[in-house]
């Protein structure tokens, strides 16, 4: 059954593996056409398993999902015609050139001979691989491989693009170039982008909305700003130059908001009215005769959201679940 929703609709999707491992555990989400959706979570959270189900490579255990209006189980071929995917492994053939990859992908997607060459040249140019187009991929850098992977996913002009950790292992420059291209695809070409990442900054910069997944369940969803707002405002932390002033510094800050987590040498408060209180705080501390070694204003990050929702930091969470579900995704 197809629906009129041209984006992605997921309803109660479940995937279990042998040993009663719930890799994806009853998730619901909706991605509007033309939206960039960031799917954020640590290693083993269930991100790739979800992508494999939405791209028809893995049948769900339960639940339902439609992509571009087509059911991922009953209308797999229709789904595949409408999507492009760059999966976690770049999966390129080291013995073929970039141009040969484009020709193969275009040919298998049914493009006519005349269109194959022009489309390949156009996309290779767009991702900055024109000069390397006739070199074997085995000699490409990680960033070049990722860019070729992206170009291959776009050959047949898909309306929905799945990118599974597209910038993992890339240097900052390559990462930034890829972000620009993804942004351009969504904003100018109207492509819907479903992007999984374990990088907070990537989700923050690129995504219109973010879904945070942990241990197979979506623990939070919304725009990055809304998610951060939900867990509270900015915090300010003051570290006195003289450690004996620590208690008094805490009393001063308490006038501006609730006490918050702080380092052993400092005092902190969650500001009730945000950053605009900062000048008043500096004046109050000065009036109290407290000299400062350090004063820091901290805005909530998506890591704070993850911490608030799961009790763990995103940075370390992957190690705990390293050998869990995602590693069990069959080919």
């Amino acid at each position, binding site marked *: 059954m197809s629906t009129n929703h041209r984006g992605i609709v997921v309803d109660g999707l479940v995937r279990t593996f042998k040993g009663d491992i719930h890799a994806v555990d009853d998730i619901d989400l909706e991605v509007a056409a033309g939206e960039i959706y960031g799917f954020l979570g640590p290693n083993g959270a269930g991100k790739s398993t979800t992508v494999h189900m939405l791209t028809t490579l893995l049948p769900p255990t339960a639940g339902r999902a439609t992509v571009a209006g087509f059911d991922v189980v009953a209308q797999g071929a229709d789904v595949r015609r409408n999507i492009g*995917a760059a*999966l976690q492994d770049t*999966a390129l053939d080291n*013995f*073929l050139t970039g141009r*040969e990859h484009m020709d*193969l*992908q275009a040919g*298998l997607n*049914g493009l006519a001979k005349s269109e194959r060459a022009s489309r390949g040249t156009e996309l290779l140019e767009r991702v900055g691989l024109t000069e390397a187009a006739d070199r074997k991929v085995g000699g490409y850098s990680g960033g070049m491989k990722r860019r070729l992977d992206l170009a291959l996913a776009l050959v047949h002009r898909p309306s929905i693009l799945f990118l599974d950790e597209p910038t993992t292992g890339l240097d900052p420059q390559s990462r930034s170039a890829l972000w620009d291209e993804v942004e351009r695809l969504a904003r100018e070409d109207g492509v819907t982008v479903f992007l999984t990442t374990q990088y907070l900054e990537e989700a923050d910069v690129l995504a219109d909305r973010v879904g945070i997944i942990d241990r197979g369940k979506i623990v939070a969803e919304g725009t990055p700003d809304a998610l951060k707002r939900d867990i509270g405002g900015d915090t300010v932390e003051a570290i006195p130059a003289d450690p004996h002033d620590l208690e008094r510094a805490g009393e001063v800050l308490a006038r501006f908001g609730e006490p918050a987590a702080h380092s052993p040498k400092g005092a902190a408060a969650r500001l009730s009215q945000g950053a605009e209180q900062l000048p008043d705080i500096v004046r109050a501390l000065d009036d109290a005769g407290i000299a400062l070694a350090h004063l820091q204003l901290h805005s909530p990050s998506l890591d704070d959201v993850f911490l608030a929702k799961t009790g763990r930091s995103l940075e370390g969470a992957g190690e705990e679940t390293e050998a869990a579900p995602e590693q069990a995704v069959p080919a």
Partner: protein
Amino acid sequence: MIAELAHQVGFVARRSVRRTLRQPALIVPTLVFPLFLLAVNASGLGAATKIPGFPTDSYLDFAITVTFIQGAMFSSITAGTELATDIDTGFLDRLQLTPLRRVTILVGQMAGATTLALIGALAYLAVGIASGVSIKSGPGGAVVLILYAVFIAVAFAGIGATLGARTGSPEAVQGAFPLMFAVFFLSSMSMPRDLIAVHWFRTVATWNPASYLIEGLRSLVITGWDGTALWRGLAVGVGVLALSFWAASRALATRMART
């Protein structure tokens, strides 16, 4: 439908051939090892031709067939490791995301192994003739010999593809090579069946289908046009081809779980 399938097979096959021809590590062993073993056997086992009833007075003529079979085994391993590598690296997933049909992948992937088998067979025949091998069935027989050897290689490639699709591990496929060699060792590879003195060995060689593949090929070199030997060999080849491709198709269906 047929045109679309042929179109898809063409793309997968072209990639398979390109990959194979760009890997000297696949081509060199296929050419060198069978010819090296032929040289060792022909020089060391020449005295076997003096056994009463031995069908030829040149052991080189007798043994050249084994070279083609070994080439087929290399092709089989190549087909398996190439498919397993595609599974291992995720390239199969890339193919699965296109409108490609399963049968297309299987048939197309065989192209590289088939090309390798053809290169090998031509090289073995050229080296054999240069070394004094005489093809009793004449030039026409030499052509049939090449086609027959490639056909056997394709049938064996199905075995390699089955292993590749089942395990998804190139190393596991390569590990099967000694097993295949053992199957041929227990055949009429080194001695005509009626001259094998050890009873159990002769019984095993008689029941071993590999003997008939070898004897079919060998008949073209040392006998001429022997319809019975050719028919038996062809029947075994068709059987291996059908079974191995059925098994490979099933293994690939399990591996390709797309909806």
